[in-house]
């Protein structure tokens, strides 16, 4: 198992990474680095490859070219299996089981990862869902599911947090939760990569912004090389 990264270490290093999805090249020579304690905002047009980038960072999708390391593990090798528990991905589709209650979902994850069930209840409490804990996920609103996903992140305590459409479905009162979650990850020496179409909010959250253009990551508002 790769050794854990220290606070000064790199969390993500992607070098000239190319990714193909369903035979369509999505990322083409993308280079990106994320260091511990940092939160990086990612913007880009629809279909530019933002979600694909998150899947690569989650070690769920291997590059076809280039190389990268996430939490010290080389992408596309068996090393990546060992670091997965240190990564949390919140996609735009909820990952909760619809027929289980919110509490059952989180307790299931707690037991599966060797945590106490009380930690699941605490996480629900923290995102303000304790009163709705016995409601099935299928009966929850989009915003409640989003908050439950953030509770899942709090439970997992990841070193690398990947948020896709971070603010989608959240009302004004809940948007602060995203910041709370990101701050907790940073405080533990982790890092966050956040995708959002809500650029003003994203700029408030992120230490720096990158844009995915033509399959490459460039600093936001910068011209991409031809």
């Amino acid at each position, binding site marked *: 198992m790769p050794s854990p990264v220290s606070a000064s270490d790199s969390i993500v290093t992607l070098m000239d990474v190319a990714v193909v999805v369903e035979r369509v090249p999505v990322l083409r020579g993308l280079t990106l680095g994320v260091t511990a304690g940092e939160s990086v905002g990612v913007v880009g047009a629809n279909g530019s490859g933002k979600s694909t980038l998150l899947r690569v960072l989650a070690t769920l999708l291997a590059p076809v070219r280039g190389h990268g390391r996430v939490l010290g593990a080389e992408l596309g090798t068996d090393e990546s299996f060992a670091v997965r528990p240190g*990564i*949390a*991905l919140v996609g735009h589709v909820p*990952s909760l089981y619809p027929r289980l209650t919110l509490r059952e979902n989180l307790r299931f994850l707690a037991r599966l990862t060797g945590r106490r069930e009380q930690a699941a209840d*605490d996480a629900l409490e923290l995102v303000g869902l304790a009163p709705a804990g016995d409601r099935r996920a299928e009966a929850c609103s989009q915003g409640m599911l989003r908050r439950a996903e953030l509770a899942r992140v709090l439970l*997992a*305590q990841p070193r690398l947090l990947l948020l896709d459409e971070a603010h989608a479905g959240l009302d004004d009162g809940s948007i602060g939760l995203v910041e709370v979650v990101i701050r907790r990850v940073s405080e533990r020496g982790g890092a966050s990569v956040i995708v959002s179409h809500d650029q003003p909010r994203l700029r408030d959250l992120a230490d720096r912004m990158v844009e995915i253009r033509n399959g490459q990551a460039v600093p936001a508002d910068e011209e991409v090389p031809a």
Partner: protein
Amino acid sequence: MRQVPSATPGPIRQCAELARKDLRLELRAGEALLVTAPFGAVALLLVPLAIGSDAPLLRQVGPGLYWVVVLLFGVLVTLRQSAVEGPAQLAMLRLCGVHPAVRLAGRTLANAVLLVAFELLLTPVAIALYDPDLSGWPWLLPLFPLIAVGLAVLGTLASALAHGLAGRTTLGALLVVPLAAPLVLGATQTLAAARYARQPWAWLFLVLVIDLLIIVATALAARQLEESA
């Protein structure tokens, strides 16, 4: 929120947790035992209606028909919709550090429990309709779990292979049924041997060996199946 650092549970505990989750989902959906099992019972009922009340004939074909119904409808139990995980749920399990073989083992365990329940539900129906010779009934005790495990593994494997494909249920069944044919053969011949006072160990051993072979094959293919999902 303060947390005690977690120690990842061992594969057996993870497997049990996954199976428990699957069984809870099935309990809420009622797909296997409230829909498929009655459907299987109806299939057993249709045969006497089709061939008439020829008691000796029904007694003779009863055990074989029982196992055929267990196979055909048991496949549907393993391919039930409530056991399908979406891409987001799969990603979550992968990021929880659950080894692909453990995930498939959890699904297999839940499938096997449901299949044993399915077999037990169909048994009194078959006895009532076909009045079979029950002299070899003790051999059912090892047969029930062995056939359930074999079908459960095959169903889990087929479900993983057909994941995300159109016509998943039909394709899955098409993959399982030919591979499960030796299981049905072993089950029927075990009972036939017992009925005619022959030693059925060889047939029982055949079922056990088939179970072990498909368990090993599924475990070896687990990582490849998950990474390509």
